[in-house]
């Protein structure tokens, strides 16, 4: 084999997702996939089980017979970050972690439990199980990475009025207990994202933090719901469920002023949740956020060109209202 002169840029890979036809089925890649607008294509954590420890024997060397590796019962993890779009692909990340069907807002209802799924069974809904590919530009000289049966364990929406025109960014973590295909030469049809549907802070109204009308500098709202894997099959774990808590937290930076001056003391003396407009950004069909009930987890002065406040809150379930509603419907 002669040396290859072919060179690839790190930008010559795409990340795309599609809803699985069955949990962990690789049939999804045969249909049109949806490209995500990621900053870069980072290496997933493959996490094969590997033993490379010295065992008893002659000398003090690691023997070939002592090497062990298993790539079946492991959890692969993919971390993504990039620019958020109000399109089907990016919404699917939100809808997976909130377990909503694609037609609904991203709502974490009161008493939310998430969904448990058996790999290979029919999907619970059209976003409950995702296939993600890291697709190369040239499958003759490159190989794609396919991850089936992914669930989103963390999804964060953020924006900063002082950066990139206040356009929304996202970060997401996906995990799968199914053995991935790391040598794919498939060429799925991938629909690119558009530059016409990026949510921006400049279209937001009605901004509230803990019931107060605030001047917002930046925010990050994170939904986290860990996945748990169990059972055994020849292609990976058998069942994927969800952990003990789906948590919704928000970190916001707001201007220190007459409206927000009480927040430090409010945080110190709070005895229960704020019950109205705990975090609201009205943004129609553009990842607007609505949290009714929340407690402070932090309030701190933040020195900059002007005095700001860093405000941390955690959404609270009062048994009636959703933990969060994310506006992704027109």
């Amino acid at each position: 084999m002669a040396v290859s002169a072919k060179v690839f840029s790190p930008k010559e890979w795409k990340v795309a997702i599609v809803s699985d036809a069955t949990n962990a089925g690789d049939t999804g890649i045969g249909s049109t996939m949806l490209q995500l607008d990621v900053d870069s294509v980072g290496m997933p954590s493959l996490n094969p089980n590997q033993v490379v420890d010295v065992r008893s024997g002659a000398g003090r060397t690691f023997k070939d017979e002592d090497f062990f590796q298993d790539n079946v019962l492991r959890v692969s993890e993919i971390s993504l970050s990039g620019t958020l779009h109000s399109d089907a692909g990016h919404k699917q990340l939100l809808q997976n972690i909130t377990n909503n069907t694609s037609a609904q807002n991203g709502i974490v209802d009161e008493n939310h439990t998430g969904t448990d799924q058996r790999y290979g069974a029919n999907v619970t809904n059209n976003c409950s199980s995702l296939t993600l590919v890291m697709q190369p530009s040239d499958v003759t000289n490159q190989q794609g990475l396919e991850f089936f049966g992914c669930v989103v364990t963390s999804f964060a929406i953020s924006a900063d009025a002082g950066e990139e025109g206040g356009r929304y960014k996202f970060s997401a973590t996906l995990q799968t207990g199914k053995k991935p295909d790391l040598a794919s030469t498939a060429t799925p049809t991938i629909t690119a994202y558009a530059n016409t549907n990026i949510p921006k802070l400049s279209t937001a109204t009605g901004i509230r933090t803990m019931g107060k009308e605030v001047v917002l500098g930046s925010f990050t709202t994170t939904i986290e719901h860990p996945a748990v894997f169990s059972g055994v099959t020849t292609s990976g774990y058998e069942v994927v469920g969800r952990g003990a808590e789906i948590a919704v937290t928000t970190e916001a930076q707001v201007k220190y002023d007459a409206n927000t001056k009480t927040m430090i003391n409010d945080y110190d003396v709070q005895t229960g949740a704020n019950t109205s407009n705990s975090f609201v950004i009205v943004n129609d069909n553009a990842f607007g956020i609505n949290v009714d009930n929340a407690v402070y987890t932090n309030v701190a002065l933040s020195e900059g060109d002007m005095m700001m406040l860093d405000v941390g809150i955690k959404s609270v379930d009062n048994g009636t209202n959703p933990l969060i509603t994310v506006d992704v419907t027109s």
Partner: protein
Amino acid sequence: MKIAIIDKGSSLPNCWKECGASFEDWEELKAGKEVSVKKVSDSIKNLVKVKDNKKESK
């Protein structure tokens, strides 16, 4: 239809979009004013009263 909150102290969920209202309308509803909505979502049915639409006499 027009609705009004029954008890101003109740925790009215922020479902303005589901009810076909604006956020500003919803703030007024919470403050005790009557506002127009397209529908009353299930989550607020026991928290608001629907005002009858009186027909104007000819």
